[in-house]
């Protein structure tokens, strides 16, 4: 009896010794599996996020208050400089308004002459940022609006300054938006007055890079980067940022929306998400 107990104990000890090794192997296997896109895994993650999001939202409430307090104190301390800056900006914007009126009337006239078919009208909802997924390894947010609020995959997330990213996953009451800075983000863009067509590629840093430039294309510091509208995920002409540096072929972009912890975002449906749905149908997934 004793020897049996002893053997059982020894077996338990051996299992305990090898358990970490087994878990390490499991982890490597999981890493291999998750490198392939798996719809079941995504569904599971969506369900898990649906459960976890209210908890994260509750946990983050005091932090959000703290964040708001810090921002307001900073704003108060900078009131004078901010006022000066706003006066200068206002003067500049008044000039731009006149130019915009002129261009607007010209554009209307040209559209009438060419029988131009305007794009569909967009609709939008505003949502609160609830969670910051992945920290530095994955640049995405969970926001408080989902399919119940009319949000759909492919909607563009914007703030008052510019584009922030797009919706990549939609649950009933939440959705996840991938920022332009995420390592998986690729956006077709046009750069500068010469409208060089290339790709804005996120690399998890705050300044995404321009890649796939055509040979001989000239891009300079200060050139404005706009969405090109190719592929159909983003509409054309949305402001993204300006070229901040050109070093040895590496072109960095400083985004218009550089605050990566906004409290609210606007989710705009430009009526282009059919492209994503069609893609999913082709890949055999549920639309």
């Amino acid at each position, binding site marked *: 009896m004793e020897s049996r107990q002893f053997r059982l104990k020894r077996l338990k000890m051996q299992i305990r010794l090898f358990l970490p090794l087994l*878990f390490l192997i499991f982890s490597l296997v999981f*890493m291999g*599996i*998750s490198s392939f896109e798996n719809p079941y895994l995504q569904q599971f993650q969506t369900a898990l996020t649906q459960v976890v999001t209210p908890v994260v939202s509750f946990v983050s409430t005091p932090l959000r208050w703290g*964040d708001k307090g810090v921002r307001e104190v900073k704003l108060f301390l900078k009131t004078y400089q901010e006022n000066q800056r706003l006066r200068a900006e206002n003067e500049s914007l008044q000039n731009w308004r006149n130019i915009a009126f002129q261009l607007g009337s010209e554009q209307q006239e040209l559209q009438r002459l060419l029988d131009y078919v305007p794009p569909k009208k967009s609709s939008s909802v505003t949502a609160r940022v609830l969670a*910051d997924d992945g920290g530095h390894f994955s640049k995405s947010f969970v926001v408080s609006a989902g399919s119940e609020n009319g949000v759909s995959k492919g909607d563009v997330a914007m703030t008052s300054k510019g584009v922030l990213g797009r919706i990549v996953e939609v649950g009933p009451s939440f959705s996840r938006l991938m920022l332009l800075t995420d390592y998986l983000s690729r956006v077709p863009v046009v750069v500068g007055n010469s409208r060089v067509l290339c790709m804005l590629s996120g690399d998890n*840093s705050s300044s995404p890079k321009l890649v796939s430039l055509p040979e001989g294309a000239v891009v300079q510091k200060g050139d404005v980067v706009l969405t090109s509208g190719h592929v159909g995920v983003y509409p054309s002409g949305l402001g993204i940022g300006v070229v901040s540096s050109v070093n040895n072929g590496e072109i960095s972009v400083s985004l218009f929306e550089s605050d990566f912890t906004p409290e609210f975002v606007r989710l705009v449906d430009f009526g282009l998400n059919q492209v994503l749905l069609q893609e999913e149908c082709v890949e055999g997934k549920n639309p």
Partner: protein
Amino acid sequence: MTFSGTFLHLKKGIPFLICLFLILLAQTPSFFVTSVPFLFIPIFYFAIFRPGLLNDYAVFALGLFADLIGRTPIGIWSFVFVLLFFVIRLNRLFFSGLTFDKLWLSFAFISAIALMLRLFLFCIGTGTLVSGDFLVIQYIILNLLYPLGIFLCGRLDNWIEVDS
């Protein structure tokens, strides 16, 4: 099982629940700017002083949970946590004999390796080269929080130990 026995078992599950909470805390959009891997501190503490309160199963499950809600390739956090727990537990006699400052130094060394390992696994898992600049901020905040974290883990440990 008596009521006090059940209560004791529930108490023993508190370190795991606190670790879960820390994973959720890292998901909050905070002004810390960086999501600090707070979990390293309780793993370090419990692997040395009370490995019975946070075992291999729990550490593996925490890693999987962190990966699933963090949207990083699954298995990265679990690999780092299990390896961290295993290595520390294997050398717990050595660590438990160290003074506080030497233990802090050991944590600084181990956490640096763990953070770099995570970055390395992420780059391999995703096939991308990601800048590791942010690791420095994460590392500094994590190590500055170490004394507070260890103090709280110690208090929790004492509270659980009183009944057991």
